């Protein structure tokens, strides 16, 4: 029985010559399958040269910055405020250039970033543990599930009076508020990631006999990763904001952080320096956000969640 489709071949065989050996059915089947696969796969589209792509995403940003600077400059020209209160962009950027070439400045950045990362990592650890517990135990969820969301909406600056009473003017006071600001977002990210693992994946997990730890290791944790990363990103934003508020309010002797330097500039009525520090804080925030977005996009691309 070498012929795959007897009825279809019957007509052919009467007319074709003896030498015309029909192809082996296995070969035909293999060719059909691979042909179909080849047709169904999308050919790779060339998305243009790298330099072009960079340009395409850069020029709108450059233009936006240009417009902001222009409005600022017009405000200065109009003498809406005295020049020593609202200095021109040129003055500010000159001052900024001078500041960032000093070692003192980078010591300040180091102090601030150390606080930021310590606080954030602590918040991640605590948020992850709380998130994991809440997603597992229904009574715990009923008890503190909405409290976590409530904490998330609470302005972190409200915690400082208590933090100062509890920890005096110390690193601990700052850390306390940073963690309180970020941990709820991290916890919520994990909780919603675990809650929204697609049902079909859970059924596959069941069919594959995943239980207990293996189910977490091979299904729940990887599946909740995108939501967890969003939680981290949001957590970072909250911890960065809390930290900046903290550095302005809680001045720890000897730690000349970015916030302290900014406060000093204000005390000296040095607007140009104040604005310089605002720009520094903004740039650091943007850089970290870019890092999170890169991680997020890489994951989405790997998972096929974006049109490639």
């Amino acid at each position, binding site marked *: 029985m070498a012929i795959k489709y007897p*009825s279809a071949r019957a007509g052919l065989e009467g007319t074709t010559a003896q030498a015309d050996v029909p192809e082996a059915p296995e070969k035909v089947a293999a060719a059909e399958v691979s042909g179909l696969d080849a047709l169904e796969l999308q050919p790779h589209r060339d998305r243009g040269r790298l330099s072009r792509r960079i340009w395409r995403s850069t020029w709108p940003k450059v233009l936006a910055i240009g417009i902001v600077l222009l409005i600022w400059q017009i405000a200065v020209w109009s003498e809406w405020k005295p020049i020593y209160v609202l200095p021109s962009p040129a003055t500010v950027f000159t001052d900024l250039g001078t500041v960032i070439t000093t070692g003192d400045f980078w010591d300040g950045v180091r102090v601030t970033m150390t606080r930021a990362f310590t606080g954030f990592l602590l918040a991640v650890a605590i948020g992850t543990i709380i998130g994991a517990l809440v997603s597992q135990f229904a009574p715990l969820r009923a008890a503190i599930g909405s409290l976590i969301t409530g904490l998330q909406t609470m302005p972190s600056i409200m915690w400082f009076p208590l933090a100062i009473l509890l920890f005096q003017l110390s690193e601990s006071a700052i850390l306390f508020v940073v963690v309180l600001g970020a941990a709820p977002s991290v916890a919520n990210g994990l909780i919603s990631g675990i809650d929204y693992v697609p049902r079909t*994946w859970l059924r596959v997990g069941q069919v594959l006999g995943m239980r207990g730890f293996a189910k977490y290791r091979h299904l729940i944790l990887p599946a909740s*990763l995108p939501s967890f990363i969003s939680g981290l990103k949001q957590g970072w934003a909250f911890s960065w904001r809390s930290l900046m508020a903290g550095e302005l309010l809680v001045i720890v002797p000897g730690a000349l952080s970015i916030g302290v330097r900014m406060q000093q500039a204000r005390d000296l009525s040095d607007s140009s320096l104040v604005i310089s520090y605002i720009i520094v804080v903004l740039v650091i925030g943007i850089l970290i956000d870019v890092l999170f977005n890169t991680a997020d996009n890489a994951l989405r691309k790997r998972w096929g969640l974006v049109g490639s």
Partner: protein
Amino acid sequence: MSLLQQTEAVVRLESISKSYGDLLALDRVSLTVRQGEFVCLLGASGCGKSTLLSLVAGLDGISGGSLDIGGRRVSLMFQEAALFPWLSVRGNVELPLRLAGVSRTERRKRADELLDIVRLRDFGDKRPHELSGGMRQRVALARALAQNADILLMDEPFGALDAMTRDILHDELERIWREQQLTVMFVTHNVREAVRLGDRVILLSSRPGRVIEDYAITHERPRRIDSPEVSGQAAEITDRLRAEVARHGH
């Protein structure tokens, strides 16, 4: 059929019922599936055919009767391939082996063999989203085979595919079923598909699901879905199915 009757029964359902609250999904269904058999379960919506598979798979408990699969291993495939996007194609196929504690080199070798069986050897390093629907379903089949199960349950596995892809996958499934000597229970609402693939077609009534007919399909394999034999028998079964659907139309 005489040959099949000699093989061992691997799934034995005796008068099983399943209800969800007040709703009776399956009503005293009795069915025996023998080693190496390809059994299609056919019915309109609400006949509990998917429920039946999840009972055999042990994902859900029966409400009455007895279900015996003799401790055999069962794998279940769905309409969606449901591959995990964080794993490569090969990683997905390896997953059951990983869970079974197979060593890294061994499972890689086995996964490549399985990908070869479904003709996707060259796609092991791809991500699931880079494949077409039909290819993903074949990866899901390779993953199911990796479980080394005695019984393969398929819940409308080709329901979401276009007709051409489905045709070709019928040939592929038939080949793999024969080569791997699988026992298959295949749920579908497509009558021709059932006749194309099955040694038997079990027709279920709807609400509640009961076995109303057990057709033996004896046409020689390989069959074509558009052959007169398949079409003829499918027409006969369709008439019976329509009569069953009409019963609910008052």
